[in-house]
């Protein structure tokens, strides 16, 4: 009895009841396709976050206050919910046991800049303070837009943040020093206010929470990756933002650009040296932290891996259910074909022949389902799913296909053995 014969018998079995075989195959198909697509979604969203973080610049560092009470790590754009106090309020809101509110200040930013200029911090290319204003609504000519990120900073920030001005111009050092109420806005903000011709907004006066700023430039589109729209932002001189929207409290963060990606570690050490001295702390009691893109990347990657594993696990369950479907159908098939098994045994089929035939039948079902599943999975992964462009992971294709074949073997073994164990005399009598 050769392999070709076994396969031919199995194929006859599979094609004997086509709708049933098709439905059984469908179970495996869905399982395999789900594994491939969901893992691809996980991988895709992971890649999106990575792209987003690397677009911040691999040589950008962020200095922020490390406080257990308020805020937390703000992004380079200062998006963290940091509490800002007016100068007069600071003392009244102090906790009795706390001697010093953890914060980074404009003076800290100036100290780092001074160190960079004197050559003390040679790895630092640029420094920009980040002041964030919360819940800012822009209104212009009857249209309004809720700005998700309103940043007050110095002109150097645009360089540090890898941002470019598409139309109009950036604000200048002179305007910064003069507390001029000027702003550059992201395309999402501009589109909401004037429609598609965002350039129309240049030179216009837009009211932010009732304070009028002149729009001098439109930022180049960064695109939205993940849930955050990177173009929904407004950048203005920190001086005028403190005058009007945020008050003169602590900074949200300080953005620092190192001279190169390799110099990031050195720049970090230099920042520690400057700020430890200013804050009068040692490395173990720092009330601020310095982070860079790679540390964000690590955290994001870790959380994304969890997400991917979770999606994969859900899909694996559906694959398992498909496998149980194969076993179920094979058990039905064995019962249905008891008489045929008896005939085959009476004319000389050995135990192995019968096991081989039914096992091959089960594997054929799962193999076909697996192959179709890979096809559907690859096609399905070409479409954007919940805002994520899936990225097919090669291992998930191999794994899902391999597992589907394995499932055929494992779940086919029991029905096949049951068929082979039938006594020919009982099998022949079966009606």
């Amino acid at each position, binding site marked *: 009895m050769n392999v070709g014969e076994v396969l031919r018998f199995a194929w006859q079995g599979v094609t004997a009841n086509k709708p049933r075989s098709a439905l059984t195959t469908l179970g495996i198909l869905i399982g395999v396709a789900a594994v491939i697509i969901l893992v691809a979604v996980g991988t895709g969203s992971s890649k999106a976050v990575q792209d987003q973080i690397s677009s911040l610049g691999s040589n950008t560092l962020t200095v922020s206050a490390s406080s257990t009470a308020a805020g937390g790590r703000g992004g380079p754009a200062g998006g963290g919910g940091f509490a800002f106090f007016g100068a007069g309020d600071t003392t009244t809101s102090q906790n009795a046991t706390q001697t010093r509110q953890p914060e980074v200040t404009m003076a800290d930013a100036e100290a780092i800049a001074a160190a960079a200029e004197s050559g003390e911090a040679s790895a630092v290319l640029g420094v920009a303070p980040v002041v964030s204003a919360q819940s800012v609504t822009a209104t212009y000519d009857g249209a309004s837009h809720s700005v998700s990120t309103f940043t007050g900073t110095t002109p150097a920030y645009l360089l540090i943040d890898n941002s470019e001005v598409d139309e109009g111009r950036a604000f200048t050092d002179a305007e910064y020093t003069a507390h001029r109420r000027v702003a550059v806005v992201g395309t999402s903000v501009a589109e909401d206010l004037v429609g598609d011709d965002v350039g129309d907004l240049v030179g216009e006066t837009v009211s932010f929470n009732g304070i009028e700023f002149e729009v001098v430039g439109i930022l180049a589109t960064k695109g939205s990756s993940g849930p955050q729209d990177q173009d929904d932002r407004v950048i203005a001189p920190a001086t005028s933002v403190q005058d009007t929207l945020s008050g003169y409290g602590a900074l949200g963060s300080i953005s620092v650009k190192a001279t190169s990606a390799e110099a990031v570690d050195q720049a970090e050490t230099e920042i520690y040296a400057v700020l430890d001295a200013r804050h009068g702390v040692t490395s173990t009691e720092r009330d601020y932290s310095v982070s860079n893109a790679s540390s964000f990347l690590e955290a994001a990657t870790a959380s994304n891996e969890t997400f991917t594993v979770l999606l994969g696990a859900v899909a694996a369950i559906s694959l398992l259910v498909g496998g149980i479907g194969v076993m179920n159908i094979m058990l039905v098939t064995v019962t249905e074909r008891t008489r045929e098994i008896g005939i085959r045994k*009476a004319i*000389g*089929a050995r135990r192995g022949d019968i096991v081989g035939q039914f096992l091959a039948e089960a594997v054929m079902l799962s193999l076909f389902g697996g192959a179709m599943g890979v096809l559907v999975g690859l096609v399905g992964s070409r479409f954007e799913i919940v805002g994520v462009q899936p990225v097919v992971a090669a291992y998930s294709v191999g794994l899902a296909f391999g597992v589907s074949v394995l499932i055929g073997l494992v779940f086919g073994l029991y029905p096949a053995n049951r068929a082979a164990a039938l*006594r020919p005399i009982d099998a*022949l009598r079966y009606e």
Partner: protein
Amino acid sequence: MSLHRAAHVPAIDIRAVTKTYGEGETAVHALAGVDLVIERGEYVAVMGASGSGKSTLMNIVGCLDTGSSGRYLLDGVDVRRLVDSQLSWVRNRKIGFVFQSFNLVPRTSALRNVELPLAYAGVPKDERRTRALAALDRVGLADRVDHQPSELSGGQQQRVAVARAIVTDPVLLLADEPTGALDSRSTRDVLALFDELAAEGRTLLVITHEDEVAAHARRTIRMNDGVVVSDSARTVGVA
């Protein structure tokens, strides 16, 4: 198992075979000690009412079942000592079955059905085809080789079954009520075929309850209550 001994080794040599179902007081003795010797080339009919034990005897002779006690030599081989895989081999090479209900594999052409025992015997594809076609030709179905069982009449199906039974050139052709499901014309066809096979020197054991069928055999054995009550070849002590 030497072929040269075949001349003086009977095809079937059964001594004191019993078959008991159940235990103790509920035990049923389907066979209560049967002795039977069938030489090669004999054409034997086994007759008896239902419950006489003839089907049980047929199952034991066909190696589909084993007796509770006694000895059974098939072509000189003690089948009680054989393991499962060896029994498969014996069924494949030494016995050809013809059943009342034809028992062809459904959705499989006549040719494939006849090839099946050869496939399990590991015969190469080309030889298999040649031999299967020859067997189908032998039963007069050369023009129906590609038909599926559902496309054949009862008589034709039974002739395919006979072709399948003789294709391996077995020691014994075992038929269990071969005409039980056939009309009279098909019955005549099949019986004529059996006569021809017997004339060719094949050993036939036909189990039947029809006198018409038994009349074709050269030796008739009657069974009742699990014992042989008469044997046309020799005198049996009748109770």
